C-alpha cells in the first residue's frame, strides 16, 4: 500500500513523502514503518505504545478509530494517510511575550506592521 507522510514527519523518513509498504493491517504497517525509520516511533506513539491522540491515521477516506483501530485490514492498493490534527484559536490568552525581532512584511506599495 501507499503511505503518505505529512510534511512535519518527512525529516524522519529521509525526506520521502510517500512510501510503498506491504502489510495486512494498519498495525503491521506502522510497525514496518517505525522499524525502517526508528525515529518516527516517538513522533507517532506514546511511551506506552499508544498512537498519540493528535495523530490521525486514515485508510483511504476512513479514520481507523471508526474502523478496527490498528487491526484495520489494508489491501495492496489502499492509501494510508497520516495527518497530525490542526486546531487552535484565541480561546486562551493571546501571547503577549516580547518578541525577539520585529519582521516587516514586504509587499509592493503597502506594508503591514506587527502588533506592538
Amino acid at each position, binding site marked *: 500500500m501507499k503511505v*503518505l507522510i505529512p510534511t512535519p514527519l518527512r525529516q524522519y523518513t529521509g525526506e520521502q513523502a510517500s512510501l510503498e509498504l506491504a502489510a495486512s493491517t494498519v498495525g503491521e504497517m506502522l510497525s514496518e514503518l517505525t522499524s525502517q525509520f526508528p525515529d518516527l516511533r516517538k513522533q507517532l506513539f506514546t511511551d506506552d505504545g499508544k498512537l498519540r491522540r493528535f495523530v490521525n491515521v486514515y485508510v483511504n477516506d476512513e479514520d481507523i478509530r471508526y474502523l478496527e483501530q490498528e487491526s484495520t485490514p489494508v489491501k495492496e492498493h489502499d492509501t494510508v494517510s497520516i495527518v497530525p490534527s490542526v486546531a*487552535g*484559536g484565541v480561546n486562551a490568552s493571546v501571547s503577549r511575550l516580547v518578541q525577539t525581532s520585529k519582521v516587516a512584511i514586504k509587499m509592493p506599495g503597502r506594508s503591514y506592521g*506587527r502588533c506592538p
Partner: protein
Amino acid sequence: MALRIGKSEWEQLRRHGEETYPHECCGVLLGQLGDDRVKQVQAIVRCQNQRSDSLHNRYRIDPRELVRIQREARERGQDIVGFYHSHPDHPARWSQTDLAEAHWTDCCYVITSVMNGAATETNSFNLGGEDDNKRFEDEEIRVD
C-alpha cells in the same frame, strides 16, 4: 525562514476572516518547502471550522478534509506548508491554545486579526522544535 505568498492568496486568506467574522476562519496553505525553510505558497484551501460549539474563539479542521487536501495536493506535486486562521477582535499573536494544538513542525501558522469585521494585522509563525519542546517563531512574510 520565511513565507512567500502571492498577493491574490494573501488577500483571499485575509478576506476569509472578514467573511466568517465574528467566527474564526481556517484553511490550508499548499506549495513547496524550500531548503532554507522558505515556504512558497501556491494555493490556499478554505476549510470549514469544525468547532461548532465555540466558533468565535476556537477552530478545528476536520482531519478527513485534511487527508483529502493532502492527497490531492500530492497528486499536483504540492505539499501542505502551513495553515491559517483568524482571531476575531484579538491581536494576530499566537495563543497558548494555538501552541498546544500545533503539531505540524516546520510549517507555518498564519494568524489574521479581524477587528470589528475588518482584517488588520496578519502574522506568520513557524512551528519549531519537537512536540515536547515546540515553539512558535516569528516568520517574515513576503507578498509577491
